[in-house]
């Protein structure tokens, strides 16, 4: 017995003694819920892969900290007065990670691959609008269109591919650049990918904007959010995006504050309650407005987001150039909502607490996807709010794919709770145009408005920002008046980053836009608090 005890003590000592090993303070370790599925963002469609590709590749243009387009691989660009031609002047002296020079031929090659039927890309549409691409010299690319198309400029943010490495592959998805060894022009060079475990990058000393301040980046695959949080607390991760609960309740300790800086800014997305406008219940605008008045958005933001968000008034991010703050709002007031419903003919005749009209009770079902806790909570609060004004709402949560394919795509719903992410370019043709109400198309609520159709078209056919703003301002007014959606809230993004990383400057674009300028605090290697 004493011998086994001795062994046990020895093993325990062995294990504990190695705990002192310090993790490298010069590595930035971030967590990812999902594994990377490929490195060429033309052929991948998941967030984790696009994030990883962003370290290695560049586009011709990108969004700056204020979400305005600026040049990346392009130094500058001119748009011809008729809006049909964009001339990109490329940066000189840019090299691929293998040392080969980057030229206009790479841009032309990327364009050809994007429209090649053999490339399994979901993002070819923007490039199919292109009439021709010419490369008069190695540093100039001229793109021509049949008609002016403002969102086209942003489409050139697509990662540019190295022609010299990829031209021998028919299908770029099956090239080693996608599977195991990406080569780009970006701030980081690829080091290794351990499937399901991690992806590692090292700073590119020849990067055209200067060597990044953080020498190494490792993205760790940790599929469970609770585990990510424990890893963060124990020093196994340097950053993660906190949930509202974690931000409000679980990181308010001095210990956490000593190790991490927390940031808070509006995230690029919003939640909404959308009506099926072909349902007789919601065809009357007054009813939709009454429902908007009956919903207590402050309570939703408090209850679901712990106050970490703001009310949405339309489909754009507050604080950006396209946002129109002067639209009709619907302050919470159940008595006003009741009066509006009464005006629309809905009255509680039999006294059971539920409104009726023409012998029909006001009951409907709201659908949302399962597995999204916030949306279930939002649904529960709205259910309560509406019950107070005499509307009975049932809640049904469905698995994501079934929800989309069997209900949303087939328009088999009364109302739904969903969210959209907000793109920096304001074009929302696909969501609001009356030409996009067909099956699988994105105007699933069936919104039709001739003026909005005209303005959407006007907004995407000019590069003049003032003219675009005028069009989108009016669209926001109409949406706020017509209410095909009740816009609910814009949640905050809540990242936490270890204190040894300096140079983080939150802006409308978030915190990672200047990642290459981040640096590590002098003497960070001596900080025992960060290691375990």
């Amino acid at each position, binding site marked *: 017995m004493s011998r086994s005890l001795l062994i046990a003590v020895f093993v325990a000592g*062995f*294990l*504990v003694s*190695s*705990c002192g*090993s310090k*993790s*490298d303070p010069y*590595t930035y*370790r971030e967590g990812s819920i999902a*594994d990377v*599925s*490929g490195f060429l963002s033309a052929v*991948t*469609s*998941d967030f984790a*892969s696009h994030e990883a590709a962003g370290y290695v590749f560049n586009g011709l243009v990108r969004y700056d900290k204020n979400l305005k387009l600026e040049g990346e691989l392009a130094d500058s660009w001119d748009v011809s007065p008729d809006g049909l031609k964009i001339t990109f002047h490329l940066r000189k002296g840019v090299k691929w990670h293998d040392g080969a020079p980057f030229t206009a031929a790479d841009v032309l090659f990327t364009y050809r691959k994007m429209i090649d*039927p053999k490339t*399994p*890309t*979901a*993002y*070819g*549409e*923007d490039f199919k609008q292109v009439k021709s691409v010419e490369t008069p010299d190695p540093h100039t690319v001229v793109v021509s269109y049949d008609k002016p198309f403002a969102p086209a400029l942003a489409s050139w943010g697509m990662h540019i591919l190295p022609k010299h490495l990829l031209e021998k592959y028919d*299908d770029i*998805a*099956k090239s080693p650049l*996608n*599977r195991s060894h990406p080569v780009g022009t970006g701030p980081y060079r690829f080091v290794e990918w*351990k*499937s*399901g*475990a*991690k992806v590692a990058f090292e700073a590119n000393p020849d990067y055209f904007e200067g060597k990044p301040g953080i020498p190494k980046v*490792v993205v*760790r*695959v*940790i*599929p*469970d959010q*609770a*585990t990510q949080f*424990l*890893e963060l*607390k*124990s020093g*196994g991760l340097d950053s993660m995006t906190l949930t509202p609960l974690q931000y409000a309740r679980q990181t308010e300790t001095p210990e956490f504050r000593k190790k991490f800086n927390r940031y808070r800014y509006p995230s690029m997305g919003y939640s909404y309650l959308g009506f099926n406008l072909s349902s007789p219940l919601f065809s009357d605008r007054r009813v939709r407005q009454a429902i908007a008045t009956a919903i207590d958005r402050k309570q939703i933001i408090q209850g679901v987001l712990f106050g970490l968000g703001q009310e949405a008034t339309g489909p754009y991010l507050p604080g950006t150039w396209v946002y129109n703050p002067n639209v009709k709002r619907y302050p919470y007031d159940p008595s006003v909502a009741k009066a509006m419903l009464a005006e629309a003919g809905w009255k509680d005749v039999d006294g059971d607490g539920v409104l009726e009209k023409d012998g029909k009770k006001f009951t409907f079902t709201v659908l949302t996807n399962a597995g999204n806790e916030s949306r279930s909570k939002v649904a529960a609060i709205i259910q309560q709010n509406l019950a107070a004004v005499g509307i009975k709402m049932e809640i049904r949560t469905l*698995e*994501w*794919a*079934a929800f*989309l*394919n069997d209900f949303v795509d087939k328009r088999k719903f009364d109302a739904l709770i969903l969210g959209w992410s907000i793109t920096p370019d304001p074009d*929302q043709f*696909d*969501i609001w145009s009356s030409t996009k109400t067909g099956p*699988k198309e*994105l105007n699933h609520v069936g919104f039709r408005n001739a003026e909005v159709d005209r303005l959407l078209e006007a907004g995407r056919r000019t590069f003049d920002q003032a003219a675009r703003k005028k069009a989108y301002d009016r669209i926001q007014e109409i949406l706020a008046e017509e209410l095909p959606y009740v816009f609910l809230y814009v949640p905050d993004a809540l990242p936490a980053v270890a204190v040894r990383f300096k140079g983080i400057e939150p802006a409308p674009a978030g915190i990672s836009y200047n990642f290459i300028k981040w640096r590590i605090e002098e003497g960070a290697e001596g900080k025992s608090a960060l290691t*375990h």
Partner: protein
Amino acid sequence: MFRYILRRLLLMPVMVLGISIISFGVMHLAPGGPVSLASDLNPKVTAEARARLNAYYGLDKPLHVQYLNWLSRVARFDFGDSFAPDGRKVWHKIRERIPVTLSINLLSEGLIFLVAVPLGVYAAVRRGSLFDKASTVTVFVGFAMPSFWLALLLMILFGVKLGWLPISGLVSLEYDSLDLAGKIVDRVRHLVLPVFVGAFGGLAGYSRFMRSTMLETIRQDYIATARAKGLRERAVVWRHALRNALLPVITLLGLSVPGLLGGSVIMESIFAIPGLGQLFFQSVMSRDYPLILAELVLGAFLTLLGNLLADVGYAVADPRIRAGN
């Protein structure tokens, strides 16, 4: 005996074929496909792009053609290419995960066996004693406790509060820079929590089973004979009774064969272990048909194989069963 095994072996391909047809059908009944999951609700993806992607993956062909294509490939031991954008061979993806899941499950299984057998035997021999009652309570607590919860508690205690053990992953980030001893220690430290949690939940089954077969065995006449001969109690229990009582446990071991490669989705997600369970979960979520099908067929094959091994093992160990055949 030989004819029995032969018959079972011949039946196996038929069973696997049947299972693959059912799996294929059920998989395609599930709403959403590989393309729609990647492209739904994305304004940049047009109907034309979707159709093109469907054609790229061969999903535009009728179902029976898709199945026959798959079958003809599998007949040549080719499980096809994954539908994930990296398009790697399905078999390569599975193969790189096998050692991880297999080693963790073998260790857990071994630990269960090492603890459960003595536990069950002691509990049987000292039936009704404090030890018996205490061990019963302990193993059933392990059985009833959700493993993800236990995992989180241990992670908080040993990972965050005490800082003794790593929380997740299979190796540290600095693994490559360690020497051999360091590498071994690093791996062991990462295995402690998942193996312990995996074993704790499975302890109840084995130890209870061991206890009841042991109880039955020590009531047998030959045990009484052994005692009457004047053998020491230790020898009676451990040499004579245990051997016979272990026989039914072989069935349990056989049944655990498919589990060795199946991997636990929950455990592998919580501990961020890149094993087969995690791979299977991802492939289902992304509707990666070739990968799902390969994993299901592999699972079916292993289940059948495990059953066969258990039956054969049983027959080898117990002549009465062989005679019955």
